């Protein structure tokens, strides 16, 4: 407020005028000299052109942003993006969706690929979705239905009344109303796969199950509302359930597993990965899972219990080893209680245990995903290859950081039928491991090697085999 840095002398004190040098009494109206320093007497201040009596009122408030109506005006910035050819094509398809003839012969293009492309840029809308609809459709997979609102999801069922398999990803807008409509509109539904149906409440699930007793596959990921009653209703209504996926189910508890025992004999594919939520951490106990496998294990071909923190070696010994008969695919991602020695012992003794018990041993596995178990290493890998090697088509041992170069080298020798392999973050993997793989695995099409720092730019390559994540190569490129 003051022009000078010095504080104004107290009112009533004497001060010398900075201009005329005359002594004067400081008042409330005394002004600072301009340029500073000093203070001006009343006549000099007036002569200088400034009005000492000018009111220094309270500072006016800044006018509030807006048009005076009280609401804030939001300023929109539109980042101008050059229209991509993909979006232009999709717009065009949307515009002439009612005139299917105009789109030419649809038969020769792969509609599933189109569905993936449109979903990739999240451009599937109620307007262009009918491109994929047909009264005769028995299967429908849409990969991103974020923009389909409940009426559009209802329309979907009305326009595809003969669906037996339905898969919808990112179906967050599916509500009770939609599911209730599907009860009658999709009478033949046998397999339902949903990613993110978090709005559907428990009563809607139950009534849906009762309406679809012939359901054979029920696969959902992410639901905070699916509860024990839903599980009971599912098991009671759908006696032929073969495929069950309940991944990231917030309310999951040990008690959920008991009804599942009734599915022994029919259930062939089971996934209970990542159960619980932040309020309900690691809810499934190893004991309950062992009991479950004891009941349904003999019929299982696929089992996924990833991210169940309580699973340890006991589960392998008391659950899998004695009870599985025809398992082909096993996923135990991020089960950190598993030990190197335990996993090695499990694979070593799997066959002999069955033979001792006089039962058919489990055949070699085709798909194994034991990734993100950083405690596992060479012993486990060698035993695994010894047991399942020739049958293996897909192997993921990402983050087995202790696996030695020798053990990684044996993959090529023991598992010649591999299609895909992930040895990311296996620190000992080097060029010779890759070379051995390329030499002996003729069906190999993909190897992931993120975080394998010992691979060099000279990492061997081969036509038809994608080697993904060679970091040494990237450094050279940039």
């Amino acid at each position, binding site marked *: 407020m003051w022009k000078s840095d010095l504080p104004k002398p107290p009112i009533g004190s004497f001060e010398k005028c900075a201009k005329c040098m005359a002594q004067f009494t400081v008042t409330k109206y005394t002004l600072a000299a301009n340029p500073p320093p000093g203070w001006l007497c009343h006549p000099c201040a007036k002569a200088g052109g400034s009005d000492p009596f000018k009111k220094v009122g309270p500072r006016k408030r800044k006018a509030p942003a807006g048009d005076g109506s009280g609401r804030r005006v939001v300023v929109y910035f539109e980042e101008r993006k050059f229209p991509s050819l993909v979006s232009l094509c999709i717009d065009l398809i949307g515009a002439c969706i009612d005139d299917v003839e105009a789109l*030419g012969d649809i038969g020769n293009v792969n509609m599933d690929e189109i569905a993936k492309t449109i979903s990739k840029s999240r451009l599937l809308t109620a307007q262009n979705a009918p491109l994929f609809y047909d009264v005769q459709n028995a299967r429908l997979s849409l990969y991103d239905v974020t923009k389909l609102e409940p009426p559009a999801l209802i329309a979907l069922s009305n326009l595809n009344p003969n669906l037996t398999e339905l898969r919808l990803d990112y179906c967050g807008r599916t509500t009770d109303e939609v599911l209730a409509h599907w009860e009658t509109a999709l009478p033949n539904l046998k397999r339902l796969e949903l990613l993110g149906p978090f709005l559907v409440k428990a009563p809607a699930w139950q009534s849906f199950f009762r309406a679809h007793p012939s359901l054979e596959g029920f696969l959902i990921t992410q639901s905070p509302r699916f509860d024990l009653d839903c599980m009971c209703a599912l098991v009671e209504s759908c006696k032929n359930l073969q495929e069950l996926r309940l991944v990231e189910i917030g309310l999951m508890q040990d008690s959920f597993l008991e009804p599942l025992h009734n599915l022994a004999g029919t259930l062939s594919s089971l996934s209970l990965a990542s159960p619980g939520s932040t309020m309900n951490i690691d809810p499934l106990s190893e004991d309950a899972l062992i009991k479950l496998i004891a009941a349904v294990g003999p019929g299982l071909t696929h089992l996924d219990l990833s991210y169940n923190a309580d699973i340890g070696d006991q589960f392998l010994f008391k659950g899998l080893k004695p009870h599985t008969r025809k398992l082909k695919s096993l996923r135990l991602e991020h089960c950190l209680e598993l030990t190197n020695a335990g996993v090695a012992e499990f694979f070593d003794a799997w066959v002999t245990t069955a033979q001792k018990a006089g039962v058919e041993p489990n055949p070699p596995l085709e798909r194994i995903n034991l990734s993100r178990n950083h405690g596992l290493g060479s012993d486990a890998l060698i035993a695994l290859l010894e047991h399942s090697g020739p049958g293996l088509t897909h192997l993921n041992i990402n983050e087995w950081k202790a696996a030695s170069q020798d053990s990684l080298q044996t993959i090529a020798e023991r598992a010649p039928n591999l299609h895909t392999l992930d040895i990311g973050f296996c620190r000992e993997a080097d060029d010779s491991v890759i070379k051995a793989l390329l030499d002996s695995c003729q069906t190999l099409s993909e190897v992931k090697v993120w975080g394998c720092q010992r691979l060099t730019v000279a990492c061997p390559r081969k036509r038809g085999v994608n080697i993904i994540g060679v970091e040494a190569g990237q450094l050279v490129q940039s």
Partner: protein
Amino acid sequence: MVEEHAEGNAAPATSENDWVRLISNDGYTFLIRRKVAMNSGTLKNMLNEESNFAEAATNTCMISERGIIVEKLCEYLSYKALYQNSPQKETPEFQERLQPEIALDLLMAADYYEDPTES
């Protein structure tokens, strides 16, 4: 848009203004400026001089799409090269140059060749 069945051999030296050749799977040949082709992330990678791809060595890309699709792709790339830095008001709509008959095929080709994250 230049469409010709050119014969001259491709120049080994690369510059913004030299030509690259796109060949459709039914045998049509299209010549476009290198800087136009660079608007496609996939073509850019194919023609990257640091790579060892045959495409880069010969400045020729085989495109497994029909001629009509490759033609429209070239047309779009030229359109993009011409207008991507000009104000929106002066940019004509490309939509009206698209025929619905090829929309689905073009969509698949665009998805592969456009690859906006790369460009």
